[in-house]
């Protein structure tokens, strides 16, 4: 059995480059993220902070793990892949995701070794983190478990959650599945029961970002990525009505309140800007459960850890594009500002395929608003090559399409209103049947015939 954060640290930590900081740190004083920022500059790696002050300032027994996704190598270990390129990583992800594994109910629940409920709940005992300048307050980046209707199982959502008082947090929810589930309950006058997972195997966290149809149990997606069925137990507050992962490190159980919102934010976001303070959902906490020596898994927001954690969305783009146009080779996104701009390469066999593939990747992801399509001679992971294709194969009057009234992402600072943006498709492929000019380059045979090492060369 390998499905826990501690098993990943033990089994894959060395391969992932995991380091430990054993000095006592104060995450509310930027001490954790200051160290992470320097590590990112020098040699990015996962970091386990073993001695951490809680929000109340006391040395606590909750430790913190960040940067589980800081490098491609670390992300690979999450999916049992040693080394490998982004291409291999995406293929591994999709291979895993296809093998859905239903969750299993177990009797043993390490995550419930310690339980506090009701008036005994004190969120101040947890190691909240202040991440970046101007953050609105103490934050976690948990996975929110909720129950889908019609027996469709569980929904997983990756959220930001800000401390408000001893049993309340403000939670930013994007207008997708969790938002819809809460709205349905709210319209009926009901709170939505949820469980926030503050640490599990990093593959479990990735499952929450997968673009999964509503009728698919996302616990089964987690099992697929873990390579074994997810173990689950009834929550302490809601019983079998809301199951929680048995091997999680910490679970916060509560309700997203109906008819209530609170000022929450700002928070450093994946677009590498502050997401502003806004009116967000309110979580009222009923219970906190945790296992011995709990490790809270956090995301280093706005940095490589955060950007690489979008691998599920990235792989989803690839699958969607291939479904629409089998000639699609690869999909990448510009890492500069979150997955807002994707690049698709294809072996085009008909004009119109680029637009078809672009719409396929744009439809399921509200983060994505710009798509560039190139021929398969372009390396989509090389931004310079992509811009070369855009510069030399595009005529703006025929190759650019603007798609108005597209639902966008709340955290996009260019967005107007609640969710309105505009899509853009740039077709940088050669027209079908066009004569492609040869690339200007020295013949390979000449390079082989006249090796540089055979010549005497000196400076002047």
């Amino acid at each position, binding site marked *: 059995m390998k499905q826990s954060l501690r098993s990943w640290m033990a089994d894959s930590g060395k391969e992932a480059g995991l380091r430990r900081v054993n000095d006592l740190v104060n995450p509310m004083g930027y001490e954790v993220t200051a160290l992470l920022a320097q590590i990112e500059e020098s040699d990015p790696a996962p970091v386990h902070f073993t001695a951490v002050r809680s929000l109340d300032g006391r040395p606590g027994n909750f430790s913190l793990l960040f940067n589980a996704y800081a490098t491609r190598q670390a992300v690979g270990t999450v999916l049992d892949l040693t080394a490998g390129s982004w291409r291999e990583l995406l293929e591994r992800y999709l291979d895993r995701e296809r093998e859905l594994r239903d969750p299993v109910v177990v009797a043993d629940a390490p995550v419930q070794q310690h339980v506090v409920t009701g008036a005994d709940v004190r969120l101040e005992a947890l190691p909240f983190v202040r991440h970046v300048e101007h953050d609105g307050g103490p934050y976690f980046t948990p996975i929110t478990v909720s129950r889908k209707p019609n027996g469709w199982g569980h929904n997983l959502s990756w959220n930001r959650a800000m401390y408000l008082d001893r049993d309340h947090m403000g939670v930013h929810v994007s207008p997708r599945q969790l938002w819809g589930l809460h709205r349905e309950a709210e319209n009926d006058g009901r709170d939505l029961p949820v469980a926030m997972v503050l640490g599990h195997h990093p593959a479990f966290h990735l499952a929450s970002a997968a673009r999964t149809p509503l009728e698919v149990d996302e616990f089964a997606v987690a099992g697929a990525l873990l390579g074994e069925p997810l173990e689950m137990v009834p929550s302490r507050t809601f019983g079998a009505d809301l199951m929680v992962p048995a091997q999680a490190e910490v679970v916060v159980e509560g309700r997203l309140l109906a008819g209530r919102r609170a000022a929450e934010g*700002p928070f450093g976001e994946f677009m590498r800007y502050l997401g502003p303070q806004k009116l967000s959902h309110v979580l009222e906490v009923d219970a906190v459960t945790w296992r011995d020596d709990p490790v809270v898994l956090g995301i280093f927001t706005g940095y490589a850890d955060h950007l690489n954690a979008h691998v599920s969305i990235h792989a989803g783009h690839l699958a969607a594009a291939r479904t629409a146009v089998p000639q699609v080779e690869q999909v990448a996104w510009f890492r500069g500002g979150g997955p807002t701009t994707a690049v698709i390469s294809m072996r085009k066999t008909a004009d119109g395929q680029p637009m078809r593939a672009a719409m396929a990747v744009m439809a399921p992801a509200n983060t994505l608003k710009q798509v560039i399509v190139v021929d398969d001679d372009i390396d989509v992971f090389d931004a310079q090559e992509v811009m070369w294709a855009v510069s030399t194969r595009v005529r703006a009057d025929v190759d650019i399409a603007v798609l108005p009234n597209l639902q966008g992402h709340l955290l996009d600072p260019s967005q107007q209103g609640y969710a309105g943006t505009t899509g853009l498709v740039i077709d940088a492929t050669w027209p079908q049947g066009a004569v492609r000019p040869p690339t200007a380059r020295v013949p390979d045979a000449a390079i082989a015939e006249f090796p540089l090492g055979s010549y005497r060369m000196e400076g002047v």
Partner: protein
Amino acid sequence: MRMRDEECPDCGARNIVDSGMCDIGTVRIRCVGCAGYFLPSTSSGNRTVENVTNAGVPITVWEPAARPST
């Protein structure tokens, strides 16, 4: 999401806020510096909480009973 930059009248901290939240006029900003609450410096007053939050039912804005000491 359009943003506004609001200065806390108590501690002077800079607050990056959704402009829609400020357009309501009665909703207070939570200061990132002192965790106190204050009204935006100006407001068009032309939006409702329900409109800004895209909610289908009446919404009450919740604030903690006391300013946290942390």
